[in-house]
């Protein structure tokens, strides 16, 4: 089963998940895994959806790899710390993933951003990058005008290995001069791309070739070196995998690229001169249109997070897990200097690598903790939205005569400060359809789009069978079903509360 297609076909056939669970149990290698609920306790709750996947499956380790379920008191299958802060395995610090180091680096995966293909020419990896104006769909149907590369904003990911020689042919399809800077590389100065200090501009319609050897490894990026073009979205990942794969090997290598824009109401053009920012994107999408990061229970996960906001730093918080900060954009940090965190402040033009063992199944929100970044744009919560029996549709129905305002503010206004919660947010059917059309969100709670806003995405940690169901099968999955199944297996089903389904 080398491809998702094969896996999907396989799953359609039948109960492979049950079989693997059975094999896993026979091997008995998950002795210290989090104990699932006993089947006899799982009396079907009236308000719970039917069980899905393979309810009998238990967290297990593929037989092909030499890893353990527990290291020095730290379990890869249940929330745990370990026994000794000085241990290499404290909070999963050096607990390896399932992937073998000999398989090379885990593929880098930045949801919603394409990978830039290359061709080999005389031992040189040749990339073609086109600087251009693009339309980027921040939200379903909300297409914003920004600049990017090769039809994408952020630009496509350049992925190479330490020691490669690269040639990047940059063509400028913008109607104005541009420069491209290879951020972080110690390259010959004439290829640095610093506007006019080191090179002449790439004129509209013209091409410039950059060629240099890469001796670094780590998280880099390229961007226009014209300030306003940067603010307008011209950036892309430049990932350099180490020649010698670092331990411990990770199973997942995700990339999240944070950006901010100021786009006035009713408009689609970002105001790159603005000092205030009202649209926030992760990999070019704004929550809830950001694509969740989906991994399997027990995997070692790396998330590289680049803050390319024009002027705002982002305190990034992952729920349900404690992660190690293992590198910044400059280089990998020696293990002795790794820091465990729940929240990491990532400054402008900084990248941080988070590594952790996904030992806590569920849908975990992963977000910037700045209050104003946890929504798409700030508007004052006054007007029909907070008034009883009033809606904007009444105003839109007849523009020539407005409805009478009801002057009774109501008892709720006796509380100074009311309302603080954003009220009356509306999402159209088309919007909801697009949100739910992605496989990564299948089985999440029906109201998930109401909470994931702005610089927010979700880390989904799924048991193998549910991972296969969500990511690789065509089987219909009811909203909330995966979440309920995780509660059933790892949580407290008696306290399960289904989401109101009004947003479906």
């Amino acid at each position, binding site marked *: 089963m080398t491809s998702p297609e094969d896996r999907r076909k396989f799953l359609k056939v039948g109960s492979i998940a049950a079989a693997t669970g059975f094999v896993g149990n026979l091997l008995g290698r998950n002795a210290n895994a989090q104990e699932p609920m006993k089947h006899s306790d799982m009396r079907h709750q009236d308000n719970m959806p039917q069980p899905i996947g393979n309810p009998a499956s238990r967290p297990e380790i593929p037989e092909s790899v030499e890893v353990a379920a527990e290291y020095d008191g730290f379990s890869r299958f249940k929330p745990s710390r370990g026994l000794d802060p000085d241990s290499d395995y404290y909070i999963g610090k050096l607990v390896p993933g399932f992937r073998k180091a000999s398989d090379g680096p885990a593929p880098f995966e930045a949801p919603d951003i394409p990978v830039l293909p290359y061709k080999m020419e005389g031992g040189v990896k040749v990339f073609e990058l086109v600087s251009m104006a693009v339309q980027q769909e921040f939200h379903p149907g909300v297409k914003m005008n920004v600049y990017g590369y090769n039809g994408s904003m952020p630009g496509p990911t350049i992925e190479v290995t330490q020691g490669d020689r690269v040639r990047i042919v940059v063509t400028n399809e913008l109607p104005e001069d541009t420069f491209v800077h290879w951020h972080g590389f110690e390259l010959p100065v004439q290829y640095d791309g610093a506007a006019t200090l080191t090179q002449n501009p790439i004129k509209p319609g013209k091409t410039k070739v950059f060629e240099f050897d890469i001796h670094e490894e780590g998280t880099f990026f390229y961007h226009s070196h014209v300030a306003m073009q940067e603010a307008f979205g011209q950036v892309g990942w430049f990932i350099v995998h180490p020649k010698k794969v670092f331990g411990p090997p990770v199973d997942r290598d995700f990339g999240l690229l944070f950006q901010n824009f100021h786009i006035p109401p009713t408009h689609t053009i970002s105001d790159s001169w603005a000092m205030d920012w009202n649209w926030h994107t992760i990999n070019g999408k704004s929550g809830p249109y950001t694509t969740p990061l989906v991994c399997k229970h027990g995997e070692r996960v790396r998330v590289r997070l680049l803050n390319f906001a024009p002027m705002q730093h982002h305190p990034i918080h992952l729920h349900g897990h404690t992660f190690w900060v293992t590198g910044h954009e400059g280089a990998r940090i020696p293990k002795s200097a790794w820091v465990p965190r729940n929240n990491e402040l990532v400054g402008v033009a900084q990248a941080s690598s988070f590594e952790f063992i996904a030992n806590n199944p569920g849908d975990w929100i992963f977000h910037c903790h700045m209050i104003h970044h946890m929504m798409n744009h700030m508007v004052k919560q006054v007007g029909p939205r*907070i008034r009883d029996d009033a809606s904007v549709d009444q105003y839109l129905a007849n523009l020539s005569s407005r409805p009478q305002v009801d*002057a009774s503010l109501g008892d709720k206004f006796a509380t100074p400060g009311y309302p603080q919660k*954003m009220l009356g947010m509306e999402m159209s059917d088309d919007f909801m359809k697009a949100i739910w059309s992605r496989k990564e969100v299948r089985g999440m709670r029906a109201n998930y789009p109401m909470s994931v806003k702005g610089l927010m995405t979700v880390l989904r940690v799924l048991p193998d069978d549910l991972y296969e169901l969500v990511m690789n099968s065509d089987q219909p999955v009811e909203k909330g079903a995966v979440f309920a199944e995780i509660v059933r297996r790892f949580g407290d089903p008696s306290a399960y509360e289904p989401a109101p389904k009004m947003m479906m």
Partner: protein
Amino acid sequence: MASPIGRTYTSPPPVPTAPYGLDELDPSGPLFPDMRYDGSDFRAAPAPVYVDGEMISEASPVDAETHGYGLDDFLTLAAQNNPTIRQARLQISAQTAKALQAGLYPNPTLNYIGEQIGVDVEGDKDSPGEFQGMTMSQRFVTAGKLKLSREKYMRRAHVSEHLAMAQQFRVCNDVRIHFFKALAAREIVGLRKELLKTAEDGAVTARELYNQGQATRPDVRKSSIALQRARLDVLTAENHSREAFRRLVAITGVDLSEGVVSGDLMPQGEPISYQEAMSLVLTESPELAAARAKLAADRVTVRREQVEWVPDIVAEGGAGYNFDAKETVAAAGVSIQLPVFDRNQGTIRQAQLDYRRQQEEIRRTELMLGQQMANVYQQYLTALQIATEYDRVIIPEAELAYQELLESYKANRVDWPTVLDAQMEYFDSRLTRVQHLEQARTNEVLVRGYLLHGGLMAAPGPTPPGHIDAVAKPR
């Protein structure tokens, strides 16, 4: 002692109560209707009524029940009842009566004559007189004086006809002007009520913002000021609307109860050019026609005065008894005035000068009309240009801006005060459009109606000062 403001929570300032008259004058109007603010909270206004999810129109029920009058109704009423139109017609009759009188032939005179009474004659010491008898005398008018006099007054009657036509235009134009003013005033009331609703929303919004720490007490007070001003604007507009209707009714000459006007403020036809307007007024103005007719009358006046010196012949004849000759005798006489000193030369000269004066009067009238037209046309054109562009561009743009902001608000992209600003701008633009349409329509009436207005001024007679009406018998 420190001010408590800002140290503990203080509730927002109260909404001001409605000004005197708002409830009485317009019971259906919007105004937090039953609100009695006691310093602590709002009283509720009636919530909008919905049937099958649709809001019921808030059109004033009073308007629906009241009879609506169109322009033609008022024109018909005025034609029948305006006193100045009748005055003007009576002036024509008065002139024809004068013409009749002026052409009447002088009556004969019957004389009794007793001459030399008591003279001694043979055989009779004291005779009854030498002659006792009766004569008839008759003045024979020469040189066609009576015919000319009649013609002169008939021509003045003709002048009166033109003046009556002018008066009719004065009345009709005034009806039209006041009709459009009343129509505009009525539309303005509606728009002022919309703006009041916006101001009410502004007052509510300010208090909502206050409760979220996003507006200060002075901000809330400002919203109260805006609200009260909007209320006063509604009262002013309603008062003005009543005034306009009453003025319109006064022109018609009948007593109409309160009603509403109905019609369209937008001009229907093509706009008129200045050249067209001027040529229209110079060729068709009844005032100018009257002045020209007056010139013709003055020409006859000159001719009439030129024959005045021609002596009439007064012939006298009769019979009596001559007590001296003791026989019946006849008597005869002819008298004629000799134009030795008075050949009416002064009056002829005066009439000729009056004729010259009237020539200048025509020119003066033309120039005066030109001057008035320059002013009125300018106002007409400016108002029409503004109203047209408000109609064509500004209001649709304001409406779209309002709509787009409403949709943005719905999509949580813009806050409500911004929507309210756009709403106010949209209603305010419509208000400006109506004001300029009123200007355009009232001035258009003058441009097309020979600049005549003042339908309740007394209808003028045909003779300006400086005319010869000093003799008992009109001549």
